[in-house]
Structures are given as structure tokens and as C-alpha cells.
């Protein structure tokens, strides 16, 4: 029945499909016919070929009729086998690391096997623009908000036991290629007090971090020029970098082995119902409940509506597009309905360079107070580096082209000042990726939108979404299945802070 409905919708497209189908049908028929007659004529010469032939045709017709009975998958038009299912319990939009982590945890937490039908929709299976695979792959505990520190600790714990969580029987164990080199933050005079405060917060939360004076710093890392550095903080454990692809694929492989459906297609629209509610002040509010998600298939006009109970918005840098379709932020300013999802793509460059005399195996993930960071990449004297531009000089996020001027003007001078060996280096390649940048307070937005009672958000992680994905996935799954946070209380990261205009800012030293 449902296929017929779709037939109706796409009458024009169907026409072409139908005729082409017919041609191929005939084609096979002619071929199929030939050997059948032959074998008959040799096997039973007594009976008439014609009747036997007729019988065979009847049999085929009967078969066809049986196939077309309700409950069978037969249909008169060819159906794209990659189409998403027509119904699902939970639809996750965005197949990046956050989306797949949520999918995994939903399955992990379901009580009965197969109780939940979870679909992950990803518009680009090559992940050419996904932040996950374009990130620097770092994980650190050195945050100032306890929530972020706990997210990192939980995620590090997950990665340590990744094969217990994500291992699939009879498949290779997962090797994240985790490099246990800590983060090293350098603070100038102006920000040293913030570093000290952060240090005590981190210690309280259980992170293993140590503070270093410039002398200790020089002793530990003789290749650093400590001019201007007043204090440094250095992670001893659970910090370093890993391969984002491996993490993404491990989540995906495990989730799919547990029954999550992966589909390729872009979510372009929603069907929703609108209910009008009254606030205590007597203002009316429109509550939009999503009924179905419209999935546009890649490189075609075909689309599929997926009816669902719950939608999870894990579309990364482009998550606010989805929110806009649901008219989030379209109301008058200073009202509930006027608050848009403050997440936008911001382009960040990563440069790979080679320096034969650079620091060796003990190179940390160094973050200078100038904002420049760098880390080792492999063992052959290669490094990657980057920095965030000033607010006014944000590059155009319309494409992923790399601005090499930025390296020359903003990065290299700072880098060479801090590590004199880098005065001589050679940029060998570069790439750009999108931060899922939260313009409000640069932290993740996790939870239900108050005006869309069945869309959960997990977005806006602004440069630390990869490392937090294991713990965030668990938190969102708890929110959906248990109704509240169970293991880590992330309620300060929900929408209320936007409504109350109370940003949850990281106190950074950069």
C-alpha cells in the first residue's frame, strides 16, 4: 500500500521507471523462454509444446500474483533498495561521530533485542565535509567546566575499554592509535590565575594534571622557548590524540551489528503538527511535533518520508538548518520563539608541516597562549598545527579552501617564537574543516528543544565534539530512554541557558 502511495506522489518519475522496467522484463522473458522449450521438447516428445508453454506461463502469472499479495515485497516499480524504511522509532540526522555514538548507546541500552528501530541518516557517505574526519583528533581533560572535564574522563574511560564496548565478535580488535602524549597549555602573566583556578577544578574532578613553572618546563621540554610563559599545565594521563576515522567506524560497525539501519540521504523537510499553548503570562506559543522526516536521496529527485516518534539532531555544523525548517528562531526577538539555534559552521585550517630538527617522541599537544596549537603527526618529523582566527576575521564558511596566508601571518611567527626549531619548516599539506561552532558559549547543546517536544539536540560542540562523543552519546540515550541523565548530569548544557541568556563559558587561557 505504501509503495502505491509513493507511486502517486511521483507520478511523473514513475512513468519513466515503469517503461524501462517493462523493456527489461520482456528481455528476460525472451531469454527465459528459450531453454525451457528446448528441454521440454527433448524430454517429453509426446505432449504438445504449446500447452506446456501455456502452463508455464500460467505458473509464472500465478507466481506474480502471489508476489503481489499484501505482505510480500513485490512492487510494480523498481524500488531503490537504499531507501530508508518508512517507519522508525528514532531517526538520527547526521552520521558523524556524535550521531553514531547516540545510535550505539540507544541500542546498548534497549532492554529487549530489536525493541527499538533506530535509523541513522547521513547525506554524504564519503564524509568529505564532516568535522569528525577533518578534526585534529585530540582529547584533553584540561577544561574549566566540571561537565566538560567529566565528559572527557568518561570518554577516555570508554576509549580505554573500547574493545569491550565496540568490539564485534570475529572481527579485528579496534586500534584507535591512541597517542598518550598529554596536552601542554602555556599561560602568560595575564591568564596565569585562570590556569591555576582551572587546575584546581580539574584536580577536584579527578583529572591527572600538573602545573609547571617556566624552569620545570624548560627542564622537561628543552626545545621550548619559555619567554613570556609564567605557568604551564601539563596532562599526565588520559590525554593525547587518536584516529577519528577509527572511532567513527568502530561506532558505526558496532551499531549496525546491533541492528541500527544506516541510510544515505539528506533530511530536507519535516512534517509536523502545530499545537498552540499558553504561557502563564498569557502569551501563546506554537509547539511543533514532528510526524515524519523527509529524506532526499542523493543524486536523484526521489525522496522518502520516514515516520518517526523521535528525531535526534546530530547534524554537526549544519544542525541549525534543521532547526530553521522547524521555524526555531523565527519568532519575534526577545521571545521564546525568537531564539534560534546558535550553531554555525566556522572554517578552521589545519596545516601539516615537516621539520627534521623538531621535538621528538615526547612532543605534547601544545597550546600556546597566542592561540596556536601544534602536535606531532607520526614519527617522521611531521607535525600539524592550527589556530582560531579573530572573531572579525572569520573566513568564508562557504567552501573548504585553505588560506595559506593565515599560516604565514598568524601561525608561523608564534610557532617559531615558541619553538625556535620551527624557524625552518616546510608546509607539506593542509586541510580545512568546519567547527560546529556555538556562537552563544562555545559548548555543546544537549537536550530537548522546549518548542519541539520530540527533537533532541546534540550539537554545537565547537572543537571538542570528537573527544566527548562517547559520553555525549550515552547521555543523549539516557535522556531519550530514561527521561533524564543517569551517569553524568549535563542538564546545564540544555536549552534553558539560551532562554535565560546565561552562557556556560569555558574560561580559556587562549
Amino acid at each position, binding site marked *: 500500500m505504501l509503495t502505491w502511495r509513493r507511486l502517486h506522489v511521483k507520478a511523473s518519475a514513475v512513468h519513466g521507471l515503469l517503461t524501462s522496467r517493462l523493456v527489461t522484463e520482456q*528481455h*528476460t522473458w525472451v*531469454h*527465459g*523462454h*528459450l*531453454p*525451457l522449450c528446448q528441454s521440454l521438447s527433448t524430454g517429453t516428445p509426446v505432449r504438445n509444446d504449446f500447452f506446456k508453454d501455456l502452463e508455464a506461463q500460467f505458473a509464472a502469472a500465478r*507466481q506474480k500474483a502471489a*508476489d503481489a499479495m499484501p505482505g510480500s515485497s513485490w512492487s510494480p516499480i523498481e524500488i531503490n533498495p537504499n531507501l530508508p524504511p518508512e517507519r522508525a522509532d528514532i531517526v538520527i540526522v547526521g552520521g558523524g561521530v556524535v550521531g553514531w555514538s547516540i545510535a550505539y548507546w540507544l541500542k546498548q541500552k534497549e532492554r529487549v*533485542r530489536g525493541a527499538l528501530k533506530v535509523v541513522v541518516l547521513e547525506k554524504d557517505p564519503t564524509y568529505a565535509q564532516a568535522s569528525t574526519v577533518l578534526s585534529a583528533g585530540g582529547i584533553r581533560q584540561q577544561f574549566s567546566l566540571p561537565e566538560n572535564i567529566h565528559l572527557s574522563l568518561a570518554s577516555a574511560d570508554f576509549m*580505554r575499554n573500547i574493545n*569491550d564496548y565496540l568490539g564485534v*565478535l570475529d572481527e579485528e580488535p579496534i*586500534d584507535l*592509535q*591512541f*597517542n*598518550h*602524549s598529554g596536552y601542554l597549555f602555556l599561560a602568560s602573566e595575564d591568564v596565569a590565575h585562570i590556569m591555576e583556578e582551572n587546575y584546581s577544578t580539574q584536580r577536584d574532578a579527578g583529572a*591527572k594534571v600538573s602545573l609547571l613553572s617556566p624552569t620545570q618546563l624548560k627542564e*622537561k621540554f628543552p626545545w621550548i622557548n619559555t619567554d613570556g610563559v609564567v605557568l604551564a599545565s601539563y596532562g*599526565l*594521563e*588520559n590525554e*593525547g590524540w587518536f584516529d577519528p576515522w577509527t572511532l567513527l567506524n568502530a561506532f558505526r560497525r558496532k551499531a549496525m551489528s546491533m541492528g541500527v539501519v544506516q541510510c544515505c540521504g539528506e533530511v530536507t523537510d519535516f512534517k509536523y503538527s502545530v499545537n498552540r499553548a499558553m504561557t502563564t503570562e498569557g502569551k501563546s506559543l506554537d509547539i511543533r511535533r514532528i510526524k515524519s522526516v523527509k529524506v532526499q536521496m542523493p543524486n536523484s529527485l526521489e525522496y522518502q518520508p520516514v515516520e518517526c516518534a523521535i528525531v535526534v539532531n546530530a547534524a554537526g555544523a549544519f544542525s541549525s538548518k534543521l532547526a530553521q525548517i522547524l521555524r526555531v528562531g523565527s519568532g519575534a526577538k526577545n521571545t521564546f520563539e525568537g531564539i534560534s539555534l546558535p550553531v554555525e559552521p566556522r572554517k578552521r585550517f589545519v596545516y*601539516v608541516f*615537516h621539520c*627534521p*630538527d623538531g621535538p*621528538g*617522541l*615526547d612532543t605534547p599537544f601544545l597550546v600556546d597562549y597566542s592561540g596556536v596549537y601544534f602536535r606531532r603527526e*607520526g*614519527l*617522521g*618529523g*611531521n607535525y600539524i598545527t592550527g589556530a582560531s582566527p579573530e572573531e572579525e576575521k572569520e573566513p568564508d564558511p562557504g567552501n573548504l579552501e585553505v588560506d595559506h596566508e593565515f599560516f604565514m601571518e598568524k601561525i608561523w611567527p608564534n610557532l617559531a617564537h615558541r619553538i625556535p626549531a620551527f624557524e625552518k619548516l*616546510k608546509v*607539506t*599539506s593542509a586541510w580545512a574543516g568546519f567547527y560546529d561552532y556555538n556562537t552563544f558559549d562555545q559548548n555543546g547543546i544537549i537536550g530537548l528543544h522546549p518548542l519541539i517536544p520530540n527533537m533532541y539536540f546534540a550539537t554545537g560542540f565547537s572543537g571538542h565534539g570528537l573527544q566527548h562523543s562517547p559520553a555525549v552519546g550515552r547521555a543523549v540515550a539516557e535522556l531519550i530512554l530514561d527521561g533524564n541523565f543517569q551517569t553524568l548530569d549535563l542538564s546545564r548544557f540544555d536549552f534553558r541557558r539560551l532562554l535565560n541568556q546565561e552562557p556556560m563559558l569555558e574560561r580559556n587561557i587562549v
Partner: protein
Amino acid sequence: MSAHLMSLHRCCQRSARLLVAGRPWSSSSVSSPPLHTRLLLFLTQRFYDVEMLLRWRSQQGQRRVQKKNAYYSYTQHFHGADIAAAFYVLSLKGGFRYVGQSDWFHTDKRGQFNWNFLNHKDTPLEEVDMSCSLISYSGLENLVGQQSLRTLSLQGCPEVDDWFLARLHVFQDSLEELDISHCPRITTGGLAALRNLKGLRRLDMSSLPGLSNPGLVIILLEEMLPQCQIIASGYDLSLSQEGIEERNEQHEQGHESDKSEKQAIY
């Protein structure tokens, strides 16, 4: 003769054509699944059970390791952290020596040990031999308080991995000798964490099967821990040298940098 050949040839062609023609027909008649497909379907339904069994078995194994490496809080509460650590070492069939003592306490082959170790209350451990034991990251928690630990042998421990090495920073002020040879799960990413053990004088890292580029890693480790004597036998370094060159080439293919510069690194 040639005519004969021609007709044979044609015949072959025809049969070939027939074969080709027959193929779509046979594949279009799958509407009723043949026996082997049904059998497969049947097996896939069974497979969950098989899978469950296998998973259960591997979980049992994990649980055993976890149990062995549980935190000895009870012992610690009644006998102090040092006795708890000593008891943990002996339970995992390891051996140790107290600070200021010359005798070692060891577990024998049958898992028996001398309970006299209880007589040395509040004496920290100086040398610990956990070779070929099931010590894991969580079990290390029992030893964390041992701030006088000078020697630690982890030779051939199947559960010792990179995260374990990263945790060793807790002994950074005391540890002088470390043996991690024959540990199957250690890789370069974990060796980088030894940077915190600045007091290390001797490191045995022989025969680590997880090292992908041992020649280069050994050089980098020597550079990172200049005061430390590094023992690394059991590597075919001639092969790994090739590995380095291979990496070099790969790198050059990608980023066309000149060779003379490259050779300067190694």
C-alpha cells in the same frame, strides 16, 4: 576440414550464447528459495544463540581478569596499603621485595605463598615482579600508593597496554627499572607516555609485537630518555630499516620534498 572446424566453432558459439541466455532466466526464478538459502536463513536465526554463547565466553574471560584485578579495599582497610599491595602481587602469582629487606616473597607454582609477609606492616615495596601475570590497568590501582617502587617487571603480561603505561606516571619519582618486554598489547602510542618517568635508568622493551617501526622508535626513545639504558632485543632491525625507508617514500610521494632533507632526520 575447415568447414568442419567452422561448424564446430559455430556450435561452440551457440552453446555459449545459450549459456549466457540461460543465466537471467535462472536468476529470475528465485521466488521460492532453494534449500541452501532456507538453511542459511535457519542458521541466521540460530546464529544469535551461537553469537550469545561466544560473547558469553569472552565476557567470562574478561570477568575473570577483572575479578583478579579488583581493588583490595578490605585488606587495605585492615592491614594498610602496603600489605594490600603485597597481597595483590602474591595473589596474581607475582613476587616482591620490601624496602630494606633482602628476601623476596614469591608465589610458587601451585599458587601457595609464605604468609609471613603479613609481619611487615607499613613497609613499602621496592621491587615488584609481575611477569606473565594478569595485571591490568584496574589492578595497578592496588600498587599506586607504592611511592618507593624502584623496579617493576611486567614481562609478558597480556593485559598490559598503552593505557597501563600512561598510568605509570604515579611512580615517576621512584621508578628506575622497568621491564615491559614481550607485552603483546603495547604500541608506540603508549611508549610516548614513558616520558613522565624521568628517573628511569633501565628499560627493557624487547620483543614487543605491537611495535610497527621498532628501529625508529628505539632511536626516539633513547632521545626522549637520555639517562636510560634501553634494552631492545628481538627485533629484526634490518627489516625495520626498510620500513623507515618505505615510510620515507610514502611521505615523499605525498608531499614531494627533497631527499637530502629527509635523510637528515634518521
